[in-house]
C-alpha cells in the first residue's frame, strides 16, 4: 500500500512537466497578437507594444519562454497577466469560489443521486422508479444554460427564494448555481446506482446473505450497496475533478467569478502564465482525486488490494 502510494505520487512529476509544456505550447501557437488586442479597436503605439514584448519575452522562441516560466515557478513566481496582476493572486481569489460551487454541486448530486438511485433500484417498475427515470431523462436532455435560465426565472425572479447572480449574498449565492451545476451528474449517479443495485440484488452472495437470515436492511446496506457503489464512486471522483476545473457556462450565467471563466478569458487573451497556472493546478487536483478513488476502492471492495 505504502509503495503503491509513493509510486502514484512520483507519477505526478512527469505529468506536471508534460502538462505545463503542452499547455504553454498550445497558448504559444494561438494565432493573433495578444498585445495588439489589449487596446481593442483603439491603436497601441509601437514603442508601448515593444515594451510589452520585451517584458513578457514574447519575441523569444517557445523553449526560452517556457524556460523563463518554469524558472520563475521554482522561485514561487507564477508569472503575471498582461494587466500586471500576479497569477497566484488570481488563483487564490478564484479557486475558493469554484471549490465552494463544486462542493455544493457535489453534495447535491451525491446525496440526492444516491437516495434516488437506491429508491429506484430497490423497487424496479414502481412509481418511484418511473419518476426517477422520467425526471432524470428530462434533466439530461435539457442543455445546462436552459436549466440555468429556468432556475433563475422560476426560483429567482418569480419566487425570490434565491439571488440570481453574484457571490455577494453569502452562502445563499451558491445554492442555485450549485444545484444547476450538479443536476446533470445527479441524474447519472441515480441511473448508475439504480442499474448496478438492480444487478447486484440478483447476485449469489445476496441470496446467501438473505438465506442466512440477515435482515433486509443489513443485506442491502452492508452487502449490496457497498458493492454497487463502486461505479458511482468512480464517476463521482472524476466528476469532482471536472467540477474543480470550473464550469464556464454555469459560472457565466450566475455571474460567479470562478476558475472556469478565468481560464476562458485567459485563453482568449493568450495569457500563457494564467492558463498554464490554472490548468496545471486542475491537472494536479484531478490526479489527486483519482488517487483517492483508487484508495477508496480497496475499502469498498475487499478483493481489491494494492501491493
Amino acid at each position, binding site marked *: 500500500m505504502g509503495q503503491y502510494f509513493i509510486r502514484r505520487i512520483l507519477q505526478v512529476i512527469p505529468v506536471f512537466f508534460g502538462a505545463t509544456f503542452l499547455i504553454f505550447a498550445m497558448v504559444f501557437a*494561438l494565432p*493573433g497578437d495578444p498585445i495588439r488586442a489589449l487596446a481593442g479597436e483603439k491603436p497601441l503605439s509601437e*514603442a508601448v507594444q515593444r515594451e510589452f514584448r520585451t517584458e513578457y519575452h514574447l519575441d523569444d522562441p517557445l523553449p526560452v519562454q517556457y524556460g523563463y516560466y518554469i524558472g520563475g515557478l521554482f522561485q514561487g513566481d507564477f508569472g503575471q497577466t498582461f494587466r500586471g496582476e500576479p497569477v497566484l493572486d488570481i488563483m487564490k481569489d478564484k479557486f475558493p469560489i469554484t471549490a465552494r460551487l463544486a462542493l455544493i454541486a457535489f453534495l447535491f448530486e451525491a446525496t440526492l443521486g444516491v437516495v434516488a438511485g437506491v429508491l429506484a433500484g430497490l423497487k424496479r417498475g414502481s412509481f418511484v422508479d418511473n419518476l426517477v427515470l422520467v425526471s432524470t431523462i428530462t434533466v439530461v436532455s435539457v442543455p445546462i444554460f436552459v436549466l440555468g435560465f429556468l432556475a433563475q426565472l422560476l426560483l429567482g*425572479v418569480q419566487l425570490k427564494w434565491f439571488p*440570481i447572480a453574484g457571490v455577494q449574498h453569502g452562502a445563499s449565492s451558491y445554492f442555485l448555481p450549485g444545484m444547476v451545476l450538479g443536476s446533470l451528474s445527479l441524474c447519472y449517479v441515480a441511473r448508475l446506482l439504480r442499474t448496478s443495485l438492480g444487478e447486484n440484488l440478483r447476485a449469489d452472495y445476496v441470496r446467501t446473505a438473505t438465506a442466512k437470515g440477515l435482515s433486509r436492511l443489513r443485506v442491502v446496506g452492508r452487502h449490496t450497496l457497498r458493492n454497487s457503489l463502486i461505479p458511482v464512486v468512480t464517476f463521482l471522483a472524476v466528476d469532482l475533478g471536472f467540477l474543480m476545473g470550473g464550469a464556464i457556462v454555469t459560472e457565466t450565467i450566475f455571474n460567479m*467569478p470562478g476558475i472556469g*471563466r478565468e481560464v476562458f478569458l485567459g485563453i482568449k487573451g493568450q495569457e500563457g502564465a494564467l492558463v498554464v497556472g490554472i490548468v496545471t493546478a486542475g491537472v494536479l487536483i484531478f490526479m489527486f482525486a483519482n488517487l483517492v478513488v483508487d484508495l477508496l476502492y480497496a475499502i469498498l471492495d475487499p478483493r481489491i488490494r494494492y501491493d
Partner: protein
Amino acid sequence: MRQMKRMSLIALLMALALVAAACGGGDGDDPGQTGDDGGGATGGEFSVGICEPQFLMPGNTQETCGAQVLQGLFTPLVEFDPDTAEPSNVIAESIDSEDLQTWTVTIQDGWTFHNGEPLTAQSYVNAWNWAANAQNKALNSYFFGNIEGYADLNPEKGKPETEEMSGLKVIDDTSFEVTLSEPFSQFPLTVGYTAFYPLPDAFFDDPDAFNEAPIGNGPYMMDGKWRHDREIKVTKYADYSGEEPNADAIEFRIYADANTQYTDLIAGQVDIIDSVPTEQLAQAPQELGDRFVQKESSYFGYLQFPLYADPWGNVELRRAVSMAIDREAITTAIYQGAYTPAESIIPPVVPGFRENVCDVCTHDPEQAAQLWEANDGPSDIVLWFNNDGGHEEWMEAVSNQLRQTLGVKTKFESMAFEEYLTLQDQHELTGPGRGAWVFDYPSPQNYLEPIFGCDGSSQEMGYEDHGCEEAQEAIDAGNAEPELDAAIEHYHRAEELILEDLPATPLWFGVTQSGYGEGVDNVIFDVFSFVRLEQVEVVDA
C-alpha cells in the same frame, strides 16, 4: 398508451415538486434591495451593472466599463452636454491659444484629490508625461502623440532618455502650457477624455496599488478596494469642490454576461444597467416601460475595403458593394433599432452631422449590378470579420445581399478578434472586412483623421497609397481653423472626399439601449453612453 402518458405527466409534476421542495430551505432571506433608505432627490445608494474593467487608471483605461467607474472618481477639465455634446469647462478656467499650437490651460484653484493632495497644474503634467512614456506601457499613450516631445518618450529603439515631454510646461500652480507638434483646433475637446485626467503624487509611488483603489478628484471616492469580478464601491467625497452629487454612495456590480445583468435588473437586484443585450430587445420595452432608454451613441460601423488587394483598388467595385447593401433592412430585421443606417461618416452625436451625404450608401441593387458587371467584378468575394463579437448575423445578411445583387459567390473568413486585428495591421485581408469606431471626444475630426487620415491610427485600408492626400489636406485645414463653424466646413469637405474615394463604406450608427429599475430616477446617459452618476436620484421605495 394513455396510461403511460398520464403516468409520465404525474412523474414530471412530482419531479418538479421535488425540486421545489429541495429548494425550500433557503427561504426567508429576501435578496437585498439596494437604496431603500434614500430620502427623495438626494441621499441614498444605488447600483450600476458594468463589466469587469480592464484597468482603473486614467493612462490605461480605454474601454467603457473602466471609464464609467472613473467618470465617478474623476472630474475632467471639460465636460460635454449629455444631449448636444456642447463642451463646457469644469476644472478648466480656460483653454486658450493664439496659434492653435501652443495652448495655455488655466485651472480653478482649490480642488483637491481624495487623499487631500491639492490639484495643481503639475498633477496634469505629471499624469500626461507618465502615460506618454512607453516604459510605463500605458494603453492610452497614443493620445499624447501630438504633443511636442512625444517621440523622445517613444523612441524607435532602446529606452527613452527623458521622462518629460518638451511640449508640457508648468507655468504656475494653476496653469500650464501645452505645445502641439501641429496646430489643432479641436484640442480643448480632447482633454475631456479619460486619458487626460490628473493624477496625485500618490499614484507615482505605486501605480499598481493605485489601480486597485484609484484616488481621483471627482464627486465620489473609493470605498475599499476594487473587488475583481465582484463589485466596486464608491462613496461621496466630502471635500468635493464641484456641484454636490445626489446620491451618497454607488455600488458598481460587475457582470460577466449581459443577459444575467438584465435578469438581475428585472429581479430588482441592480438599479441601472449599461446595455440591454440584443436577445432581450424584443421584450425590454414591455418589461421596463418608460425605464427603457434609447439614445444615439457614438458607435460607427463600417465595411472597409483592402485597397492594397486586387481588385479592391477599383473604386467602382467598392461603390457597387456599397450600393448592394440594404442597411435599413439589416438594422430593422436583425437589430430592432439598436443601430440606424448610416449615410454619412460624421454621426448624429457630434456637431457637423448631415444626412444623406453618401450617395452610394442608398440601396440601389440595379445600379450596383450594372457597375459590378461593367468593371469586371470578380465572381468571388471573401468577407472578413471577428467571430467573437456577435457579427455573424449581419455579415450573413450582407453576404446574402451581395450574392443576390451582384451574382457573386461569397466566403467568410472569421477568426478571433486578436487575430483579426493582426491581419488588418499587416494588410492581409483579401476582401471587405468589418470595421468599427467609438469616439474619444465629440468632434467630427475624431471620425475622420484616426480612421481615414493618411497616418490615421486606426486606418487599416491602405488608403495612404490610394489618394488619401486630398482628404488629409481638408482635415488639416479644419485642424488649423480656430472657428468651429469654419472648421466644420473643412471637415465636411474631407467627409465628401473620403466618400468619393470610399476606402470604407458607412454601415450604421449605434444606439445605446439601457434601462433602470424603479428605485432610481433622473438617469441620464451622456454622449459617451455613460450614466451621469452624480445626477442619479434614489427614489423612496
